[in-house]
């Protein structure tokens, strides 16, 4: 299936969860609680179809074809 990730079309495995996607992109292993397995902070957040998905829900939230996903982090600013 295809989703839109940070404004770009991207193909993902059918039924992939938000957790899987975040893990793939950040290269970090993520536990069922949405925290990095290495114990360090991930510092990222996910919005799916303009709604924030809390990290506690990443594991249980399956992506659907056509989803619009934004993955953000802190950068210099302000």
């Amino acid at each position: 299936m295809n989703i839109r990730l940070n404004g770009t079309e991207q193909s993902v495995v059918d039924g992939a969860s938000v957790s899987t996607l975040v893990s793939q992109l950040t290269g970090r292993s993520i536990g069922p609680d949405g925290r990095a397995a290495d114990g360090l902070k991930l510092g990222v957040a996910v919005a799916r179809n303009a709604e924030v998905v809390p990290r506690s829900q990443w594991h249980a939230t399956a992506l659907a074809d056509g989803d619009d996903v934004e993955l953000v982090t802190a950068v210099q600013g302000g």
Partner: protein
Amino acid sequence: MNETTLNPAAPDVVAAAAAAGAPADPFVVDGVTLGSRLIMGTGGAPSLDGLGAALVASGTELTTVAMRRYSPAETGSLFQLLVDHNIRVLPNTAGCFTARDAVLTAELAREALETDWVKLEVIADEHTLLPDAVELVEATEQLVARGFKVFAYTNDDPVLALRLENLGATAVMPLGAPIGTGLGILNPHNIELIVARASVPVVLDAGIGTASDAALAMELGCDAVLLATAVTRAQDPALMGEAFKHAVLAGRLAKKAGRIPRREHALASSAMEGRAEFL
């Protein structure tokens, strides 16, 4: 010879308190005690290393970040830099033009950085970067209802500042001049009015060009100063960071010390009596 021996009645209160392990004059906001009244932004720094050096030199304990799309290519982590230097993070909603976008961005920041503090910035257009008062009020209302601690970046408008406070803003942050201009404090009288009427911390935010601007903000009674460009784009950011550390402290001490009134005519500081007379 040092000044302490010349004037033993004026001990260095800052050094004394620091020696006792406590900030002399802490900045308390939302129950959190900060040892510095300088809040730094991170925008405009050419490198993370240089930014780190400037932040450390400035003595800041609270620093803003923006939320942007994650890019695997940019692995140097600003977030980690702040964690390493034990600097608290204040996410902003820079680049948001509507209350809706600002609220969503704040929600993402809370989730990513695990803080309910947010510097709320809702701008009207890219040319002036001035706050859009209507959207700002709307966003403040929504964010307060969602449990955020709102640090509201606002116009230098005493009426709007009070309205934001009444809506539950944790701090009001009037601009000195438009973001990045370095024009200083264009309307000191309004800043004084905002300070006089506020019962939440007032942070002068934006427009600072050099150290004396920050000192003036503190002399006008602001509780803290927030700046980025003046340091990050200075020729020597670390040196300028240090300059601002001293400027904020100097302005704060001057405010507390109580300046002399302005006079129209001169007032001799040496007694006229007892002068030698030369015939």
